[in-house]
């Protein structure tokens, strides 16, 4: 032991340390995404008093409660509507939604679709572990065909969503995907997403060793991250129709969509300025 050199983990100031250790299983990938998010916040130089984080229910849904930011842990599937209210009630906030694939795309799918359509100014980070982790590994709208789940004991026969395609088709202005292997790229993309105005969608593939890997005989969390390393290929600007995922198959990663269109607030301001006489515009955080 070298007694003279001391330092503190740079992620800890971003966490509510009284709530640690966290509940996540050994080798669960959610914590790695949190490291990247903390780093992206540092690099973004955002005023942390003006950043709010909202999660739904699930293992990923715990993230909001662990972050040392203004945070809210909503009911299952309702992170986006809560975040929408928060943003419109105080447009000066940068509002981040951080939740699981089941929360955002099963029970919360309808909210996702409409927030993207409206181009609501939200940064949505989805940790996709292909399953419902918290409740015991039921089939999710993201479970690849053929994967075994508690509710699909003979393998999944439901076609999953291709999340980047769904996000683009609904109107998201920024769509990207990385995996837990791509920590540096994920930091860069989170930083870029935080700076972007409008509906931003970042999908992060992460292992759920306890309920997905084990049930499918895929080894531990680290084995799934090795699979991400081996089978991922960077395809910036790829046609999102072609980035769907298959069971342990190839993974397209990168930034697929980066475009601009008026946010919901922009559209409202423009419209009311033209039809109402003494209308005062409502600003954005970036303005």
């Amino acid at each position, binding site marked *: 032991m*070298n007694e003279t050199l*001391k330092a503190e983990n740079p992620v800890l100031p971003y966490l509510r340390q009284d709530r*640690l250790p966290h509940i996540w299983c050994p*080798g669960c990938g*959610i914590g*790695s995404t949190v490291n990247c998010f903390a780093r992206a916040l540092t690099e973004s130089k955002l005023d942390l008093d003006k950043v709010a984080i909202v999660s739904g229910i699930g293992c990923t849904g715990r993230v909001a409660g662990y972050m040392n930011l203004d945070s809210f842990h909503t009911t299952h599937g309702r992170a986006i509507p809560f975040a929408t209210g928060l943003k419109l009630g105080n447009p000066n906030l940068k509002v981040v939604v951080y939740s699981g694939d089941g929360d955002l795309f099963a029970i919360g799918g309808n909210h996702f679709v409409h927030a993207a359509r409206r181009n609501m100014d939200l940064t949505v980070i989805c940790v996709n572990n292909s399953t419902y982790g918290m409740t015991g590994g039921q089939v999710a709208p993201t479970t690849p065909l053929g994967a075994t789940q508690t509710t699909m004991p003979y393998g999944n026969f439901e076609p999953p969503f291709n999340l980047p395609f769904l996000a683009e088709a609904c109107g998201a202005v920024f769509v990207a995907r990385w995996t837990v*292997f791509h920590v540096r790229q994920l930091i860069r993309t989170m930083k870029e997403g935080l700076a972007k105005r409008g509906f931003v969608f970042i999908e992060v593939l992460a292992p759920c060793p306890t309920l997905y890997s084990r049930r499918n005989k895929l080894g531990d969390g*680290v084995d799934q991250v*090795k699979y991400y390393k081996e089978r991922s290929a960077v395809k910036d600007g790829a046609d999102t129709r072609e980035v769907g995922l298959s069971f342990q198959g190839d993974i397209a990663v990168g930034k697929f969509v980066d475009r601009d269109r008026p946010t919901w607030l922009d559209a409202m301001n423009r419209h009311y300025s033209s039809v109402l006489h003494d209308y005062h515009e409502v600003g954005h955080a970036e303005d």
Partner: protein
Amino acid sequence: MAENAPAVKGKGTVFVRLEVCKGCSYCIDFCPTKCLAFSKEFNAKGYHYPVLAKPEGCVGCDLCGLYCPDFAIFGVRLKDLEKAPRK
């Protein structure tokens, strides 16, 4: 909660909060210089934790810190550490 660095021989070193490590091996497998290895000892929860097996190999890149899902390890470059105020 400042942690002590184990050994310093290369350009960098790591700090490990061994009691919160869950032995997932992310840091060991994805360290670019392969300078970490599992301890022989167990922590209080029964997990083997990483030790700097080849201290001369650590470059302080902090990839281990970015991967660790339990916030149990991080790496620093010595030149950054010397600049930082002592805690």
